[in-house]
């Protein structure tokens, strides 16, 4: 069974994505903040990580940096997703990719089904798409 770690501070959204990924036969781990996410990623070794940007204490970019800095987590593909989409959204996307994100998307513009598709793409062995969606 594929294992996904969702690092997300909004409980409603954790619930939504947890439900959806379970339906898609994922084993789902959740973390409500960056510190918890980092420790779970190291311990549980998920196949893929869904990472929010705007979170209390440690934001998603810092979490991403740490994930990519540690040997035990640096090879796990990370899909950065956010509902931030202000005037500097392009910079956020670029920053995410420069820090080693495998994909980037805006939550509101993607239904759970679409997120599952994007995650599946990351889990296919050879392909590493960097599709730039809104």
């Amino acid at each position, binding site marked *: 069974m594929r294992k996904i770690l969702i690092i997300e501070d909004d409980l409603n959204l954790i619930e939504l994505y947890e439900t959806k990924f379970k339906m898609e036969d994922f084993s789902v781990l959740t973390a409500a903040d960056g510190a918890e996410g980092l420790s779970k990623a190291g311990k549980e070794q998920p196949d893929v990580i869904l990472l929010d940007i705007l979170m209390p204490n440690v934001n998603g970019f810092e979490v991403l940096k740490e994930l990519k800095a540690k040997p035990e987590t640096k090879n796990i593909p990370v899909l950065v997703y956010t*509902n931030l989409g202000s*005037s500097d959204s392009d910079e956020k996307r670029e920053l995410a990719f420069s820090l080693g994100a495998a994909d980037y998307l805006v939550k509101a513009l993607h*239904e759970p089904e679409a997120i599952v598709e994007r995650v599946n793409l990351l889990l296919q062995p050879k392909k590493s798409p960097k599709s730039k969606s809104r």
Partner: protein
Amino acid sequence: MRTPLLKRETTIAKNRTSTAAILDQLTLPAAILVGGLLTHANRALKSMLSKTQLDSLPVHQHMQQIVRQALLVRDTLTVTIALGTKNFRCIITPVKDQEETVIVFFEDKSLEAQSEKNNALLYRLSLLFATTKLSPNEKLQVTVDHIIFELPVYNCSIFLFNKMDEKLHSVAWGTDNIETSISGKSTFALGEGIAGMVAAELKPMVIPDVSSDKRFVRKTTASRGLALLCVPMISNNQLFGVICANRKKETTFTDYDVQLFTTIASRLSSLLEAEQTRAEILEQRNKMEAIIEHSVDGILMTDGADRIQIWNPALERLTGIEAHETIGRPMSAIDSLAPLTGKTKREEVTETKIQNRKTGKIIWLGIARSPIRSGKSIAGYVAIIRNISRRKELETARNEFVSTASHELRSPITAIVGYLSMLRRGDAGKIVSSQQLFFVDKAYYNAKRMVDLVEDLLTATRVESGQLRYQIESLNLASVIESVLSDCRFRSTEKKLTITSNQANNALVFADRNGIHQVITNLINNAIQYTPAKGKITISFKQASKEGRPMLVTAVRDTGVGINTAHQHRVFEKFARADNPLSISSGGAGLGLYITRSIISHLGGKIWFENNKVRGTTFYFSLPMAPTPGRERKV
């Protein structure tokens, strides 16, 4: 034979008449003598000599001799004769083709001495005007004093014309003889009294006897028996005032005096004009200096060699750099104001962040800089520099607010759309009734509209702060339209609308995919919203060209309510919904067409619309065409 002779005499007589007319124009006294008889004395001569003196002229012994000699040698001769108490130098000139005729010019020898004095006077006046540090009015008074001292006049006064009240005001006055001094009235309206008339008509006047002249208004016992000369002071068609002089009526003013005073008047008006110009320049300079000194905005000027010429106090406060450190130095020496260096042919508006050297504070400056054109070359630059830190703070705060607010709005919508989409897909089991499905669809599409609204809000903010960024690629419009139509299918089916999209052979354009998706979504959503049930929406393409560049024009035609004429000019404005419930908006915020136009113009296209003849509206937008791969581009 009589006839030709008669003709000749007539011609001569005619010539004499015309000669006499010419002599009358001269200010120099002159007479015509024919066969030793006086046939004409010009006005100047008549005003100089008495009747008896005139009659004695032809019989004057000396005169007779010289006239005969001159006629004999047919050349000009000169003789000095005494008439009354005066000596005259007479210049006798035979007239060509007129037998026995001579013209005699008279020069008053006593005037020669006066003439020298007059020249000396004019010279001294020039020196006075040019060199002394007296005020203009003091100079006029000294002029009057000189005139009284040097010329045979009793009184002299100067009036200046005031443009504000249109009156003449006495500014300088002098007298040689207190008994004949005329005083009293010192102000004259135009046309009032002799001075006022001269000022109105701009011509010199001589009044031989003021006591018998009704126009003279300052009649006193002192004025009895006086002659008056009044000359206007004019320069470049502008009246500066008049100069007046009196003398005894027995020695009234001659043309010569008029000429002399006209010369003095012209010198005075040149002086006054120069004074006026100087005052105007000074006033202009004071105004300019006041603007530069007291402006709240920084003002900077550089010359053609990029050296700083003006650095005003406001700029000192903004930068913390003093004017004395910058004036005369090259602009490039001021590191913190880099946007102000470099050449440009047009006005430039820029923003830059600097650190004030004195306070250390970081501030934002807005700079509007424009070249000073001198013919074809640029003679420097002028820049207005303003502290825009407050505006920048507000901009940042607004952007942050929109960013946070949209994030907060999006989170619950994401959950709503997420669950509804799963419900529709049957993730929670099949929906039993068609009405249940209908309700879920309704909820789902309205939640999606909220997503679009937040998206519009964010895009509008990006448009406002100029942060829209595009990835231009060659893309097929038809495929974008297809994808938008499939997104809209629910709403269009619901209203039973027929949407047709004409096939285009080549719908390849240069554009940004996300941007153009938003444009088409907005236009089709609008069309759906404003077209009543069972209506038609048609999308078609045609080629056009703009400045030789091939463009693809897309038309979205609906059979809706049309756009109210009163709102047509506002359609592309922000929040164009206004008070009309049927006005334009994509989803409700009234931002749709505002964003649409911004995107299209950023992509190098144009957007416009027209109401259809029958019903509905057609929106058009153009975009640069991309060449079809593997084929020659059609131009």
